[in-house]
């Protein structure tokens, strides 16, 4: 009995019971598809997040200081513009820093008005963050020093207020105050739910005036050398605690940390869904065992006949084992196709990067083979052990 005999026999008997074979495979199909969809989605989301983090682009040597504690989150209070300036002065390992103020305001020009995000930055923002001016120029140090009412607008603001003509040099009103547009930012899209095209950037000092605050929302800090980040963090805590007479009033994020936090979340999710998929594969396995046992019983006489004409234990074992393997593998392949298809569909629909986890595909295929193997052994052994005389006499 050759391998192709075994395969042909397996396909024959599965084809003889198409509905039953299909239903039996369904457990494996669902399990494999689940593994592929969920793991691929998890990895795709992680890639997406990674890209986003890198897209905002404060780089590996960058770090964000937020006022207030992460846990419990208390009202941020203490971070001021002078603090950020002092950081550059007091901590020599710091390459540069950008203070950030975020708020929102109505912006108006040519009779159009709508609410957009107002960001206050210093002039060095575009040099440090991967977010550039497309036309015109960015803010200058004089703009910041003198609280000038200059602004750089995002692509969406340009479209809404200046459709069809050049906004550079034009006047807009932000919260009723006159600002001169000096530049337009490049198109950047959405990053982590933050639309980087729907904003207006003003000097940090002007932003504080406009939003009537003396606080900062965050400070971005860059190290001269990435490995100095922990040291810088220590120094900043020391220095800021001294200034504010209060410890732990700040928290820090490096880009890698944020990625790893998100990685932990997606990792946990992936582990959970892998568990679900594993259970589904197990159920699929039990389904195959069950059907194979029924099949062995139904074909008791066939086993007797085959033994009478010279089938050995091994031949009978391989026949039934082959059927179970084919069930597992067919289920695995169908699951693979539907899993890859559904995963791609979901990714395209949700705008996630289309990414199919090779690891998941491999695991799913190995699992489906494993399921076929595990599920096949016991029924095939029962079949092989059948007594030929009793088997020939079996009525059904």
């Amino acid at each position, binding site marked *: *009995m*050759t391998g192709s005999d075994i395969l042909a026999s397996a396909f024959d*008997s599965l084809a003889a019971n198409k509905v039953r074979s299909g239903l039996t495979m369904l457990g494996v199909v669902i399990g494999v598809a689940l593994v592929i969809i969920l793991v691929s989605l998890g990895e795709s989301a992680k890639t997406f997040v990674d890209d986003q983090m890198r897209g905002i682009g404060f780089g590996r040597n960058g770090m964000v200081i937020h006022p207030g504690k992460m846990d419990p989150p208390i009202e941020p209070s203490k971070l001021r513009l002078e603090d950020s300036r002092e950081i550059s002065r007091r901590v020599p390992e710091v390459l540069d820093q950008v203070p950030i103020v975020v708020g929102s305001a109505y912006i108006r020009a040519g009779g159009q008005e709508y609410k957009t995000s107002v960001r206050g930055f210093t002039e060095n923002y575009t040099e440090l963050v991967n977010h550039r001016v497309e036309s015109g120029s960015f803010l200058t140090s004089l703009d910041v020093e003198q609280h000038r009412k200059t602004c750089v607008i995002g692509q969406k603001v340009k479209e809404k207020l200046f459709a069809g003509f050049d906004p550079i040099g034009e006047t807009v009103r932000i919260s009723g105050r006159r600002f001169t547009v000096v530049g337009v930012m490049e198109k950047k899209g959405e990053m982590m739910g933050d639309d980087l095209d729907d904003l207006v950037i003003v000097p940090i000092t002007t932003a504080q005036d406009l939003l009537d605050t003396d606080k900062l929302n965050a400070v971005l800090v860059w190290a001269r050398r990435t490995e100095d980040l922990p040291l810088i963090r220590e120094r900043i805590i020391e220095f800021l605690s001294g200034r504010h007479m209060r410890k732990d009033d700040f928290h820090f994020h490096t880009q890698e940390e944020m990625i790893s936090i998100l990685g932990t979340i997606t990792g946990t999710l992936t582990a959970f869904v892998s568990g679900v998929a594993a259970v589904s594969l197990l159920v699929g396995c039990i389904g195959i065992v069950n059907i194979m046992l029924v099949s062995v019983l139904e074909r008791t006489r066939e086993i007797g006949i085959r033994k*009478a*004409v010279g*089938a*050995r234990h091994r*031949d009978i074992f391989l026949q039934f084992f082959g059927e179970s393997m084919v069930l597992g593998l067919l289920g695995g392949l169908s699951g693979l196709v539907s899993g890859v298809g559904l995963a791609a569909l979901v990714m395209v629909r949700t705008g996630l990067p289309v990414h199919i986890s090779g690891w998941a595909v491999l695991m799913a295929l190995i699992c489906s083979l494993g399921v076929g193997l595990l599920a096949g052994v016991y029924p095939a052994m029962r079949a092989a052990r059948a007594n030929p005389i009793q088997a*020939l006499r079996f009525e059904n």
Partner: protein
Amino acid sequence: MSPPVLELRKLSRHYETPAGPVMAVHEMDLRVERGEFMALLGPSGCGKSSLLNLLGCLDRPTGGELLIDGVAVSSLDDDGLAGLRNRKIGFVFQHYHLLPRMSALRNVELPMMYANVPPAERRQRALEGLARVQLSHRLDHTPSMLSGGESQRVAIARALAMNPSLVLADEPTGNLDTRTGEEIMQLFESMHRDGTTLVMVTHSPEMATRADRILRLRDGRIESDT
């Protein structure tokens, strides 16, 4: 001189039942030479089926010795017995015992598959075998599409597929009408003329007379051998 096809030395098959031991076959001595056509005759319960199962290596004796073509069956393990059934023995059953989902052609190929005959040769030999039983027009028919006589002819072609030393037939005409049964008997006679060794179980003395040797069994023993 070649050994006899069958040689039984005090061959026994006893069963333990709640009602006490049953001696289905008891200390039987027998030789069947190559080319013989022997009928096993006797009432039901005389041990015919048990003896046939032993001769066909479907069952193992509880005592004595059975030699097939000079090979002691007791020296073989299960796979050895399977090999012996495959190469040396052809079965023809009362209920045909064809595989229901397979065509006539593939049913005849089955023993050759287990003998690792290459697929092309299997096909060729199965075609020849079916031609020999005049079923060349029924190659792709499954058993449910065949009449009883046709089914039995497929079974005979299958039994002959491996050119066995011995063909064992268990009431081969038991399920057939007289005319069809007669056709099958003629087929056996032609096989006998071609030199095939045949052992046929029957309960019909009339059928038994077609053989050149009749073994009457009673209570697990040979009553007469003519």
